[in-house]
């Protein structure tokens, strides 16, 4: 006689929302790194400038922003050179943006592979966030290069222990981007309209995230609507990032904790929705 309860696993229509199977994700950790490796090896194959694109994008955007917002619109950036101010904002913003947009089409882009083999789907967006980290690292190095350049030209260098918060900030950015990306990617499987919304929405969000202006200016010039910018978690991310690496203000532990908490909540919501979608998306995509 066979025993009734010794099944290794069961495939049923619906599992509970919180059945996230993180143990399984851990078993597939090698896959995550192989995906990262694949992305790194293949992303700039057959381009002439190769990884230089990592540098060109933020540099040129910073130059344009400096011209438009600081020279023409005359937004003041305090003691910080406008170019450096913009470069810092853009570096942080583009990591978040890349995490969000690259993960938001996970299901659609990987339809082929997801339709053939099972592995915890969440590996895919996670690997994107990790491989974007590399790009972020390169851009951070560029930023440091310009920072040193400006320091030699006489800019006052203000480094503080707040730099220790940087890793937590980066984790928050990644989780925010990943969480939102997973929510969107799950909904895209049914409602394709969202694909159009994402590229457009991210663009709009940038203007509301204090990327090319300090939060203070909005508070002074548009006190009525400043709350939109102020309560946007990405504003906090960008401001904190600038405060940390440019030394423009102090950062409190509470601020970092608030960010981490928001990021974790968004990430968990994203994970639950993503997890629910991964079982049947192949029928609706």
């Amino acid at each position, binding site marked *: 006689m*066979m025993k009734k309860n*010794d*099944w*290794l*696993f*069961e*495939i*049923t*229509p*619906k599992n509970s929302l919180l059945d996230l199977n993180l143990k399984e994700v851990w*078993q*597939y950790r*090698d*896959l995550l*790194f*192989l*995906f990262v*490796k*694949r992305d790194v*090896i*293949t992303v700039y*194959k057959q381009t002439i400038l190769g990884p230089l694109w990592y540098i060109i994008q933020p540099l040129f955007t910073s130059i344009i922003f400096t011209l438009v917002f600081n020279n023409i619109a005359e937004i003041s950036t305090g003691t910080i050179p406008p170019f450096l101010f913009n470069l810092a904002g853009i570096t942080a913003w583009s990591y978040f943006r890349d995490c969000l947009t690259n993960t938001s089409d996970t299901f659609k882009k990987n339809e*082929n*592979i*997801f*339709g*053939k*083999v*099972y*592995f915890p789907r969440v590996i895919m967006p996670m690997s994107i966030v990790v491989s974007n980290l590399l790009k972020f690292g390169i851009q951070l190095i560029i930023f440091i290069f310009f920072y040193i350049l400006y320091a030699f030209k006489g800019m006052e260098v203000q480094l503080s222990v707040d730099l220790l918060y940087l890793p937590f900030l980066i984790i928050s950015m990644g989780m925010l981007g990943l969480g939102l990306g997973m929510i969107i990617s799950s909904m895209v499987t*049914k*409602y*394709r309209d969202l694909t159009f919304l994402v590229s457009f929405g991210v663009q709009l969000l940038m203007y509301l995230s204090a990327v090319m202006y300090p939060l203070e200016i909005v508070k002074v010039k548009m006190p009525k609507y400043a709350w939109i910018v102020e309560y946007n978690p990405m504003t906090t991310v960008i401001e904190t990032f600038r405060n940390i690496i440019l030394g423009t203000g102090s950062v409190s532990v509470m601020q970092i904790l608030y960010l981490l908490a928001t990021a974790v909540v968004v990430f968990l919501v994203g994970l639950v929705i993503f997890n629910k979608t991964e*079982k*049947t998306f*192949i*029928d*609706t995509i």
Partner: protein
Amino acid sequence: MKDDVILKVENLSKQYRLGTVGTGTISHDLNRWWAKIRGKEDPYLRVGDANDRSSKASSEYVWALKDINFDVKRGEVLGIIGKNGAGKSTLLKILSKVTGPTTGSIKSKGRIASLLEVGTGFHPEMTGRENIFLNGAILGMTKKEIASKLDEIIDFSGCERYVDTPVKRYSSGMKVRLAFAVAAHLEPDILVVDEVLAVGDAEFQKKAIGKMQDISKGEGRTVLFVSHDMAAVKRLCNKCILLNNGKVSKIGSTSEIIDDYLFVDKPPVFIKTKDELFKMKKTDLYFKSVRVFDDKNKTKETYVCSENINIEVEIGVNSKVMNSSLFIMVMKNNESRIFSAEKLIEDDKYIYKLRIDKLFLTKGNYILDVYLHIPNTKRYDTLSSICSFDVIDDISPFIVHGGFNHGAVFGNYTWV
């Protein structure tokens, strides 16, 4: 150990929505949600037709699988066969967790790995070696496991010279060999295989089937095998499941099920209805029925090339016509005309029988056009594209060529 059930499928059903998903999705979702809130059953689960692709559906939902039940014992090699659209691939997709069932459950005591398509996730820009690691990891191996089997995998694939070349420079056959080599070195308790053997040359197919036999017999692992290739099913499987329109129509020994499978579906018989016959009242000559059958007088859809195929035509005569004749044309895959036969109509003979000798038609789908006419003068009755039947290979020397098209007929020749 013999009665050790490793996989149990219970009341498994899968529903699909027909047509384009898009319009009405939100309204259906809202309806579902509303029903759920009131604690009622999903309103769309009740509707739905059986999965029959030839009849027009009356609702938007269709059951690709309906109440599937079966057990698989440890070490068994189970074949899953059925016509296109019978639900085989859907079943495999659920087994390999690519998609979830609508109702029912699958319980398993072992790790399942599936080969729904070899080479999933191969990246053309990466080398063979890098792809072995990536593909292996996608299939569920750890880096360490792959590294320990790397030499074996490369050796089995026979691609040693090219292993550090990007996969985009590989021939398609080489890609398949490499991919199958990775998959064959997985060590799951249950291996699910879907027609991967249709590719590759004869030597490699032999190697692949041999490897699968090793896996099941030597290592005592369980294999679920889906294929249209009856020869491979016969060689590999000891038990088979026959699916028809999303339901299990029979479970039994391989030979029994394969015989059954060949009778499934519409038999190649054409019989005029009463109405149609009534319309023929003023025609001098007309067809009553046409049928295709084997030497045991059994009408079936699929014939092996080692048996004779018979065609019987019954005609009706309202008034005798001099010099009229019966014309039968056999066409392959609905396009190429293979051959025709012509026979003068004899007085008071209403049934005509034609025998196509064995080892003449090669594997493929055949269809008939029949005329009653006086050549170049008058056409009395025409039936076109009727009595579709299939021929499959069983004993010919070309069977090792797999899907290769080796000609329309076997040819009448002698080696001297």
